[in-house]
C-alpha cells in the first residue's frame, strides 16, 4: 500500500466515486472503510435502502462472480462478507424504521442426521454478506424444527444442507410435509451439500440446487425478485 493510497479521504469523493470505492473496499474486505462510507452516504441523504442495494449489494455481487469463477476463494469472500456486515449493522435499524422492502429472510440448517455444518455456515455468512437476514437453526434438524422456524421467523427462504448421502433424502421428507400442509408455495426452497446435484434437487421438489455459497446467493436473489414481481403484478 503506497502513501498515495493512504491519503485518500472518503468524504472528499463524490457519490459516484465513493460507491466505486466501496466496491473496491468490499472486495478487499475493509470493514472500517465500508462503515465510514455507509455513514457518509447516509449523511448525504441517501436512503438506507439505496445504500444497501446500490453500493453494498452490487459490490458483493462482484465478489460473488469472482468466487464463482475461481478467482477468489472462501477466505477472501468471508472477509468481504464481514465488511458488508459492518455496513449492515448500521443500516439494519434504519431499514426497518424506513419500512424499506427487505431482501429476504432465510431459515437455514443441516437436515436430521447430518452434523456437517461448515458448508451451511459458509452459505449463511455469504447470504448475510449479501444483505439477507439469516436464521441459522444449526445441525440435525427435524421437519418440525424447520417448519416452526419458518413460521416463527416469517421467512421467505428455506435452506437445507446435507453432506452425507445417507441424510440427503431427508430433504424430501421436509418438502413433502410442506406440500401436505399446503405451505410449499409460501417458501423458496434451496438445497445444497457436496453429494447433491441438480437432478436430485429437482427429484425432491426443491426450487433449486445450489452448487456453492455464491450460487446460493445469486439464486436467492433471483427467486426473491420473481416473488416481488408476482406480488406487485
Amino acid at each position, binding site marked *: 500500500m503506497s502513501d498515495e493510497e493512504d491519503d485518500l479521504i472518503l468524504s472528499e469523493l463524490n457519490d459516484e466515486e465513493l460507491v466505486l470505492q466501496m466496491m473496491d473496499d468490499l472486495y478487499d474486505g475493509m470493514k472500517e472503510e465500508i462503515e465510514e462510507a455507509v455513514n457518509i452516504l447516509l449523511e448525504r441523504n441517501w436512503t438506507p435502502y439505496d445504500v444497501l442495494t446500490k453500493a453494498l449489494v452490487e459490490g458483493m455481487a462482484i465478489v460473488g462472480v469472482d468466487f464463482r469463477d475461481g478467482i477468489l476463494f472462501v477466505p477472501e469472500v468471508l*472477509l468481504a462478507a464481514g465488511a458488508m456486515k459492518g455496513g449492515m449493522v448500521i443500516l439494519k435499524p434504519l431499514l426497518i424504521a424506513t419500512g424499506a422492502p427487505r431482501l429476504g429472510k432465510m431459515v437455514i440448517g443441516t437436515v436430521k442426521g447430518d452434523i456437517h455444518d461448515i458448508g451451511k455456515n459458509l452459505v449463511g455468512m455469504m447470504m448475510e454478506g449479501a444483505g439477507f437476514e439469516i436464521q441459522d437453526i444449526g445441525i440435525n434438524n427435524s421437519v418440525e424444527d424447520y417448519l416452526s422456524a419458518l413460521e416463527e421467523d416469517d421467512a421467505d427462504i428455506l435452506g437445507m444442507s446435507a453432506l452425507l448421502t445417507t441424510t440427503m433424502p431427508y430433504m424430501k421428507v421436509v418438502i413433502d410435509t410442506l406440500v401436505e400442509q399446503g405451505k410449499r408455495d409460501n417458501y423458496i426452497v434451496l438445497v445444497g451439500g457436496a453429494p447433491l446435484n441438480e437432478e436430485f434437487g429437482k427429484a425432491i421438489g426443491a426450487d433449486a440446487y445450489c452448487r456453492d455459497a455464491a450460487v446460493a446467493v445469486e439464486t436467492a436473489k433471483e427467486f426473491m425478485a420473481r416473488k416481488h414481481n408476482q406480488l406487485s403484478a
Partner: protein
Amino acid sequence: MTDLLSELLETRDWLLGDGATGTTLFNMRLEAGVAPEIWNETHPDRIRALYDGAINSGSDIFLTNSFGGTYSRLKLHERQNDVFILNRIAAEIGREAADASGRKVVVAGSVGPTGEIMEPVGELSFNTAVEIFEEQAKGLMEGGADVLWLETISAPEEYKAAAKAFQNVGAPWVGTMSFDTAGRTMMGVTATDMVEMVNGLENPPIAFGANCGVGASDLLRTLLGFGKANPSIPVVSKGNAGIPKYVHGHIHYDGTPELMGEYALLARDAGAKIIGGCCGTLPEHLVAMRAALESTPRGSAPDADKIRATLGAFSSDSDGLDGATAPKRKNRRRGG
C-alpha cells in the same frame, strides 16, 4: 526411538492405507446424526470389526474412529467433556486389533477438522485450535496410537495449529488436506502451496498428501501437482471410491473394486507412497487395491489424459496451478 510408520516407510516400497470409516459404520447401522465416536464406548465390537475389516484386507495402516473427536465437534453432541476418554478408547481398540494381527500394522489416530473457521476470517484463534487438537492428541496417544493422522483439512492455519499441538504432545504425525474446489482446498490452497507450507513447518509430518475431495481423478491430479514441487517427504493418497450417485432413491459410490485397483496403481505411479481410500472405500476395494499393487510393477507418472481415460473426467478444468490467483484490484484506491 523411531515410530512404526517411519520404520515401514524405510523398508517398503509402498504401504496400503485403509478405506472409509463413515461408509462402513453406516453399513453397520450407525444412525445418522449420532457422533460415530460415541460408538467407541457403546459398540466397541463394531469399531473392532471396522478396524479388522481394513487389517484383514491387507491394510498396513488404519485410522481410528476419532475423526470428529475434538472438543468443537463433540460439543454438537454435548459430549465435549469426554474428548480424552472417547479418543483413548478409539486408539485402545485399534492397538488391540493391530497387536492381534500378527504383522506390523500402524494404528493412526485420526484427527479431523474442527469445523470452525479460523481467524482472521472466522473466530477460532490459533492458540485455541492448538489446545483443541492437543486435547484429542493426548487421548489418542494414551490409547496406544503409533502416529496421529490429520485429514480433510482445508485451511493452512488449521494444519499448522495441529502440527503445533502434535509437537507439544511429542507425537509423530501425518497430515492430508482435501482438494475439492477447482483443484484447490476450499480455502484456496493449491498442491504446490501445500508442499511449501509443509516444508516450512517446525514440526513437519512423516508424510503429507491429499484425501477425500471430489473423485479419484481429481485426487491424482493433485498428486501430480505435489510432484511439481519436489516434496522431500512421502506422499499420501486417499481418494474416494468414485462419486456418490443418486439412483432410484438410493445412494451409491460408483467406484468398483477394479477401478480402485487402477486408482491405486496410478496413485503409486504419480508419486504416492501411502495409498488408501476414503469415502465409499470398503474392504473389497482394499483387497483389489492390494492385489493390483502387488501384481503390477511401478510405472511412469500418468498424465492428465491417462488419468481421465482410466478413472473418468475431472470435476474442473483447472488444477489450480495455472496462475489463476486473485488479482490485486487495479484501482484499489481511486482518487488520491
